[in-house]
Structures are given as C-alpha cells and as structure tokens.
C-alpha cells in the first residue's frame, strides 16, 4: 500500500471532502498563504480559493465562534486551532455554545463542525505549548473527541468527523506529522467510535491513545521477547468510546494498562479505568495501571521533556509489575 505522512493524509482528507462537498470550508491562523503551521492545509488555498480557505487574525474565540455560526447555517466548517493549548481561549465557544446547541434547542439546531488542533508534547515547546487535556472535552456531552494515531486513521477519521452532524474536536499529535504509514487509496473512511486492535495478544491489554499507541506497540515488541503477548487497542475516539472493544480484551487478559500522553491525575485514563472496573470487575486480576505524564507542567529542557514523557520502557515496567 502507498505510504503517506500523517499530515499528507490529513490534507488528503480535507481535499477530498472539499471536493465532495462545497459546504466544507476551512478557517484558522496561517492556514491559507502559509499552508498551516504544520503544512496540513498546504495547497488548499490555491485549489479552493480564499472563500473556502480563510486565514484569520489571532482570534481563537472568533475562529471557533464563526465556525459555529457557519455550521448553524448549514456549512461544514473545519476550524484549525494551532495548538491545543489555545483551546483554553476558545472553550466557551466549543463547550458552552457548540456542544449544547442541539440539546438546548430541543434537537432543532445542528452544528456540524470540526475543530482541528494538535498537541506538541515532545517538540520542545515548553509548558504553554505542549498541553494535552482531552479529558476536558470528554467531560462535555454534546462533543465528540477524536485522537488519531496513524496516517491512515488520521485520514479516515477526519473524513468521518467532517461528515458528522455534531461538533467534533479532532486532536492531532504534533510529533506524528512526519510519520509515514500506509493509507489505502481511494475512499477511506473510519467511523467514529470504533476502536482498532493494533496488535493482538493474550497476556495483557494496553489501551493507548495518540502518540502513546506507538509507545505501546514498541513496548509490546519488547515484552514479546519476555514471552508476554500484549494486546494493543487504540480507541481512536474518546467520545464516542468503544468500551466494548476494551472490555472484550480485558475479559480475555484480565490485566489492563492505559498509556496516554496527558497528565495522569484527572486524565482520560482515569475514565477508562473506572469504566472498565465498573463493567468487568470480576475479570480483573490486577489493578489497572496508567502510564501517563507526571503531575507537573511540561519542562522545556529537551532531556527533561524526554524523561517527562510516557514511553515504551515505562509501559514495559508497568506490565512487568502487573504480571510478576
């Protein structure tokens, strides 16, 4: 199969959806002339023109707000927020407005929009440009939250997000933009809410999100040498969450690790752990462990940031601890 980078795959998704549906428009800082801070939207201004690819001032609330307004009128805006950190600026619009519109209107309003953003943990950006806090949006009914970990998923899920009738927060991983991977030719669509088993195994289950999926796969590789067969599951979207897929695996393995780039306390792993326990208590042979970022802001210093980040070794250690 042909290989694309994560950002090429995203671009292909945007382009295909823009070709398919003239209601799809893009808006964000530096997405037009510059092609996006990560070049995801490169070439789209040239192809689709400034009406559909709109550069904006540095006004995150207005970016998301105007995307909402456009969506209310039937367009399908895809807004780009350059760093996830800036979601702290526009969360009124996404959380208190967009996510509640269908409900508050008794089902009359529909806000089919996507907010694309990315987190830059691991890119030596320091505390204010490395935050990853998907739990905020997981805690907001009315939103969908997507976390693609591979080029193929990035493409298929973005297409699904754009066609979705509800507001979707689509969180890309900055560190993965240049990652290459196979992406099927032609129409490739990955429905929201379907986990993928990225590797089969029976000794333990590792549920991982975003970049941590690759750490989990690397850990599984290492564990294999010790005779431990880890199953790696990537839920790919947090809301809707494919809990059934996780439960299936945990009922088989009895042991669960959750690998995640966000801060452990109050993070998304907590919800997975709590839900799994609620539904599969009797199947658990050991406490569920979370391998996540420690409870501190992200240090700038490159070597400290590396130590800070969850990685395959930390997953391996957790696995050994559980299986000893």
């Amino acid at each position: 199969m042909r290989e694309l980078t994560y950002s090429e795959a995203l671009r292909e998704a945007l382009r295909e959806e823009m070709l398919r549906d003239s209601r799809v428009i893009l808006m964000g800082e530096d997405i037009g002339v510059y092609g996006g801070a990560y070049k995801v939207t490169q070439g789209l201004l040239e192809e689709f023109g400034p009406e559909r690819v709109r550069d904006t001032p540095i006004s995150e609330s207005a970016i998301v707000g105007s995307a909402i307004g456009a969506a209310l009128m039937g367009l399908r805006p895809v807004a780009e927020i350059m760093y996830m950190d800036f979601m702290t600026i526009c969360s009124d619009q996404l959380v208190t407005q967009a996510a509640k519109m269908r409900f508050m209107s008794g089902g009359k309003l529909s806000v089919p929009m996507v907010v694309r953003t990315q987190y830059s943990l691991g890119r030596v950006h320091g505390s204010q440009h490395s935050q990853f806090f998907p739990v905020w949006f997981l805690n907001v009914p009315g939103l969908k939250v997507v976390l693609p970990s591979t080029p193929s998923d990035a493409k298929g899920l973005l297409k699904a997000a754009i066609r979705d009738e509800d507001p979707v927060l689509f969180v890309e991983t900055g560190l993965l933009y240049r990652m290459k991977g196979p992406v099927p030719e032609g129409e490739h669509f990955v429905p929201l809410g379907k986990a993928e088993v990225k590797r089969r195994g029976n000794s333990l289950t590792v549920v991982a999100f975003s970049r941590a999926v690759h750490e989990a796969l690397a850990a599984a590789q290492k564990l294999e040498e010790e005779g431990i067969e880890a199953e790696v599951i990537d839920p790919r979207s947090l809301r809707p969450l494919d809990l059934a897929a996780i439960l299936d695996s945990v009922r088989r393995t009895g042991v669960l690790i959750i690998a995640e780039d966000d801060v452990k306390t109050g993070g998304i792993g907590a919800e997975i752990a709590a839900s799994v326990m609620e539904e599969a208590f009797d199947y658990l042979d050991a406490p569920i462990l979370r391998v996540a970022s420690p409870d501190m802001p992200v240090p700038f210093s490159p070597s400290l940031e590396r130590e800070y980040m969850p990685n395959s070794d930390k997953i391996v250690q957790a696995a050994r601890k559980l299986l000893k």
Partner: protein
Amino acid sequence: MVASVSVVEDVPPADYSKHGLTREKLLWMWRKMVEIRLFEEKVEELFLVKGLLIGPAHLCYGQEAIAVGAVAALRSDDPIISNHRGHGHALAKDIPPRLVMAELFGKAAGTCKGLGGSMHVAIYPEKGALYSSAIVGSGIPIAVGVGLALQREKAGRVAAVFFGDGAVNTGAFHEGMNLAALWRVPVLFICENNMYAMSTKVERTMAVESIAARGLAYGVNCMAVNGNDVAAVYAATAQAAERARRGEGPTFLECKTYRRKGHGVYDKAEYRPPGEVEEGLKKDPLTRFRRVVLEAGLLTAAEMDSLENEVKREVEDSVKFAQSSNVLSFSELEKYVYFVGE
C-alpha cells in the same frame, strides 16, 4: 478608519411614510411592542406574585422599541441571534407568545421544548430566531459565521445579533467585530445600551463615552440611535441592512435606552441613584409611540386599544396553554445530545 459615528435622528411622524412606515407596519409595531410589554408584565407577575415561574429571567420592558424597530426593518428570513434578555426578540420575530410562555414553564411545547428556558426562548429557527446565547458576548462571533454563510448564499439576507452595553467589554465582542469588518459580512451588531450591566452602570465599565465609537476601531460602519424611538431604530436598521445587502459590510448600531427595572426579575435595582428611574421612565417607548402616532393622526386610539385588548387575551391564553402543556419525559432527553437520524 471610518471617520465617525453617524447619529440617526429621531424620526418625526411626517417622515414615517418616506421611511416606508406604512399604516400596516405601524399597527404591527404597536401590536408587537404591546405584546412584549404585556408579556413581560405577565411574566413578572408569574414570578413574583403567583410564584409559578422560577429561575433567572431578564425582562426587556422599556426596550421594546429596539427589538420591534430592528426586526421590522429586517426580512422574516433574516436570522437573528439573541441573548439572555431575549423575550422581546422572540416575540418580535413573530414567535407565538404561547410558545415563548411554554418555554418559560419548561414545557415540551416551548420554543426549545423546555430545555432552554428564559435565556434561550429566542431559539426558534422556524421563524428566523436562529440562536440565543446566555453567555454575554458569545453570540457576536457566532453571528460573524452566520454572516459568512449568508455572504456565500448571495440571496441578500443579513443577520442581526443583539447584545447589551456590558457585552462590548468582552473579548468575544472584540474578536467578532474585527473579523466581521475584515470579512465584510452582512451582519448588524445591535447594542441595546440600557445603561446597566447588572448593577454596573455603563460609565463604570469603560473610560470612554460613546459605545458606538468603539466600532470605529474595527473599521465598521457605526451608528447611534435613540432606542426609545421605534421609528428611528427602524430607520437606522433599514439603512444598515440595505448597506449590508449591497455587500458593504457590517454595521455596529448602538441603541440607547433604559432598563426600567432590575437586571433579573428578582433584582430590586436599589443601586440606581434617585431621580434616574423617573427620568428613564419618561422616555418609555410605548407611551412615546402612542402619543406620536395619535397626535399625527396615523393611527386611532380605538384601533390601538383594540390591538391591546387582543394582545391581552393572547397573553392570558399563553399562560393557560403553557400551564396545560406537558413536560418532556426524561427518557426522551437522550436523543437531543447527539444527532440520532432524521
């Protein structure tokens, strides 16, 4: 930068017809202003006397001329965005009072099926009441996006968003106005300056005198008008709307009025200096309109009274309707969180 704020003068009755204010339109305006007034009086009674309503409610009496004058100058398919003080916007957009009342009672027959409440009664897209945000200022950037869609549609529609004097101090206002100017969207930003944001007088929230002049910083067309003269609001809105329909972009319109009572229905507004309220009440838009059109012989007292009586019955009926309606069953709510198919 746009040179200055254009101040729209009060419209003398002799000029009404020049502005397109036909008899029919004047009757509609009277009807709607009375409807809003009596509706709000009834709501206040339901809260304070009867104790049948609870929760926050921000009444708009005293401000009827703004909703009515502005909406009268718009097309019925021009979408509006409302705010926490939105009963008047809803009624002006011709949403039947019974639906608005049912919403206040939290009933399934309400504009939002009882899920929105007072601050969202003006969500009723069937009548062009597109959305209403209870977060001060947040409707403004949303209106920009609505304008973007209208611009693309090329059908000459414009959008209007209503907000208060307090809203101009929010970041959302700034970001929204700037983007609106840049994208030249057909949107009217209608500021209802009722002198107060909750307990805080407008002069205690900004170090400048003119709210309208704030728009100059963005390069939008800026207008100021007496918000108690429904004809002037109409004229200003019509002018701004025409401009927008011609593709000349957004207008920021400040309508000066007075909040007759408290911020919310329970607020006694004791923070207002003595004398001020009396002054404010003198400018009542209904009294003014009635006097003006009667003096000019444009409408008769009889027809005005008869409309008033009709409205009275309708408002009474709205309460009965609301009271006798059902609440959604809780199990239904789930289907409004995400799209579940048509």
